[in-house]
């Protein structure tokens, strides 16, 4: 019956109500919400990314118009986000709903995210700067720099990703009194450099924490609070941090580091577990391109070990990120394209600001969407009615400069899934038959 000479090219490998491309915060969150709605959901991504590179905090709006850290993220977002900003398009109701869902998801997993939409934590970075975050893991909260209590930062000899003395000096210069102490680990990798993940896996063990606390107590006499690099457990949620703080008898907090980010990995684990618990599927590995026929998006083609495999999707959500994450690709000077469906990318003639940390115009490039998160052309017409774009792929935001990255991921993901139609009766029947 199907003895074609090239039998794999046109075959459909599997059918889903929703395929989400991208496994960062936006993709995993949208995928989980879709699966929780009872939709057959596949999340597929070329490798891991967003979560493992981020700090594990949730920024909604970090900075006031004068560039200083903002007190109230939601009010600041409402004030500063323009009409084309993804948060404005998704709507602040979607943002509030999404943040509540994420907090309950993380709390249920034993890894609570503290905070609310009208308050930013101001937290120390590994360089001793101050970084605002709307939600932060419990293990970060005691780092609040507006708390006048002196900060003691722990320097772990031989661990190259955190220099407590440098961070303490910068904090002190900025008016947040801090000092550094040396804290030797009970033991660690001896025959090579230690990665944060090595130390975090050791800290998952109660006996290791007990030894560390015993070693460290003398050096911490008189300390009001202790800041440590973010290594307090990888697979034990907030428990390792809580236990170590109790053993030390003083409040402690984590400072996020260079990638790979241990707090980011914890967030990924929360999201992956939530996705799978809701019945969603995750494939990490293949690159993805769109499957488009006669102007209709029928699904995706995944670049598997054996070549392209087609996954039919009634609805497609693109959560592939911007230039840094492969969702957008810069071509010859002045040109860019969207990686999965070659959607039009909103550009400007100038790409770069003169200074590295300046506000680069390219940061705002991306795919334009309507309030239903459907990609639109320059005239505002919907390009494919069964496609939605979320997160860092979207035009109109400078996520780093605004400190709005995760807020956009959550709000746009929530809005996109809320706008999905229920599956056609045939699809639902097919699924329930299986």
């Amino acid at each position, binding site marked *: *019956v*199907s*003895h*074609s*000479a*090239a*039998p*794999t090219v046109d*075959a*459909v*490998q*599997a*059918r889903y109500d929703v395929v989400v491309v991208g496994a960062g915060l936006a993709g995993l969150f949208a995928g989980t919400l879709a699966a929780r709605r009872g939709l057959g959901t*596949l999340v597929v*991504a*070329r*490798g*891991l*990314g967003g979560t*493992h*590179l981020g700090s594990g905090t949730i920024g909604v709006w970090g900075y006031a118009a004068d560039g200083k850290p903002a007190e109230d993220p939601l009010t600041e977002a409402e004030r500063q986000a323009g009409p084309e900003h993804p948060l404005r398009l998704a709507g602040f109701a979607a943002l509030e709903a999404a943040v509540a869902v994420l907090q309950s998801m993380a709390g249920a997993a034993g890894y609570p995210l503290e905070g609310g939409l009208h308050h930013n934590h101001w937290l120390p970075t590994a360089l001793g700067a101050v970084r605002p975050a709307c939600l932060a893991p419990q293990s970060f909260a005691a780092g609040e720099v507006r708390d006048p209590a002196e900060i003691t930062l722990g320097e772990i000899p031989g661990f190259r990703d955190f220099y407590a003395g440098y961070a303490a000096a910068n904090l002190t210069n900025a008016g947040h009194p801090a000092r550094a102490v040396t804290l030797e680990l009970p033991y660690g*990798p*001896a*025959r*090579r*450099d230690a*990665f944060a*993940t*090595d130390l975090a*896996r050791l800290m998952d063990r109660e006996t290791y924490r007990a030894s560390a606390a015993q070693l460290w107590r003398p050096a911490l006499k008189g300390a009001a609070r202790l800041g440590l690099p973010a290594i307090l457990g990888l697979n034990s949620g907030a428990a390792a941090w809580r236990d170590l703080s109790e053993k030390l008898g003083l409040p402690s907090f984590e400072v996020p580091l*260079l*990638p*790979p980010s241990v707090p980011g*990995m914890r967030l990924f684990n929360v999201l*992956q577990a939530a996705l*799978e618990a809701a019945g969603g*599927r*995750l*494939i*990490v*590995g*293949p*690159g993805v391109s769109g499957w488009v026929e006669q102007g209709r998006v029928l699904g995706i083609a*995944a*670049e*598997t*070990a*054996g*070549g392209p*495999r087609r996954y*039919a999707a009634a609805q497609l959500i693109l959560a592939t990120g911007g230039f840094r*994450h*492969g969702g957008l690709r810069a071509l010859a000077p002045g040109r860019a394209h969207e990686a999965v469906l070659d959607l039009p990318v909103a550009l400007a003639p100038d790409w770069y600001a003169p200074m590295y940390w300046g506000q680069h115009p390219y940061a705002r490039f991306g795919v334009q969407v309507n309030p239903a998160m459907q990609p639109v052309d320059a005239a505002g017409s919907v390009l494919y009615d069964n496609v939605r774009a979320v997160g860092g792929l979207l035009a109109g935001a400078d996520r780093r400069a605004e400190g709005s990255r995760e807020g956009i991921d959550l709000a746009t993901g929530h809005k996109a899934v809320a706008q999905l139609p229920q599956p056609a009766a045939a699809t639902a029947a097919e699924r329930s*038959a*299986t």
Partner: protein
Amino acid sequence: LTTEAGPLALPMLNTTLTADLCIKCNICTSACPVAAVTDLFPGPKVVGPQAQRFRAPEAASVDRSVDYCSVCGVCSRVCPHGIRIAEMNLIAKRRIAEREGIPVRNRLLGRSELLGKVGSAFAPLSNFPIQNRPLRVIAERVLGIAREAAFPRFARPSFRASYKPAAVEAPAYRLVYFHGCSTNYYEPRVGLAAVKVLEHNGCQVTLAQQNCCGLPMQSNCEFDAARAYARRNLAWLAPYVRQGYLIVGTSTSCTLALKHEYHAVLGLEGEEQRLVAGATYDLFEFLQRLQAEGRLKTDFRALPGRSLAYHAPCQFRAHGVGRPAADLLRMIPGVSVTETRADCCGVAGTYGLKAEKYKIARDVGRPLYDEITGTGAGRVACDSETCRWWLSQHTGLPAVHPVEVLAEAYGH
């Protein structure tokens, strides 16, 4: 570009050149199950894309620690930039082997087909030495094969000798079943179950001539020997593909070799390689396709109270097709499936069988053993034979290929 052994084939060169895409984000390091348990291994980024710059044609490879890479492939899968890290490491391991020679032990472990032919012919007598403790101690001292590592028992008759083809009227698909060495010589029951499941679903199954996929030799750095096996398989299988056959296998590392390793690691090219790679399916990947086409039969009988811990092995995950076995097993009434999250069981083909790597491999798998025993499941289901044998040893649970459960549910 040349190495001590001559020019690198273009696909191999392309594999090593992916190092240039690395931004040093360390996502691979964070996911590496070997670096997680031993500081003898500095992690995939360090020995892979980072060390690759020291492997220019004229330079000696500077770092022997790449030998501790188990080539489980987790790094290549999680890399967001498409770098073939594990494949690159294997090519680097082979450069060390070119210089320092390949131990007899590794040559032996690479020859699963030869071992199988001899062992199966003399079974059950041949099972005596591999189960005999004093002999295993000697094998460890003389050869370096870990005395603790469990080996499977040789079966007689072999799969090919027990297999009887059935005629299927107007078949939906014509398939070549690639059984591999393990099914042929150790676990004929897996092949018999697979053939029954495929025939039950209206597929005509054929056994083409085939030999070892070559992967065990490739993993033990004998690329030339592996290529000879690979080329023979391609020559035998390609004519079937030209006639419209698909190739379906139950040994997930064999199917991965046909699809990917022949090209990306061994550097084979050409029409036969492309045809075979494009037409090869792992069994549950193929069954999932049947389901998507509405052809999969669901006349399952219930298997009440059957609880399974399903582990998708690294080699299956490397196919990039998700976990269709878990989805299909859940369709059987009475079956409950708990999926494992831990990446690797540790053995990685023949890695864990080596005396100097045995303890590392055992530690790699520890989170997985705990996960599996924590499910309370009565047995483990896993698509890779070496992982099944290893998991069975370390969890004390029987381990089956998922197709064995499916065949039972179909009443075979």
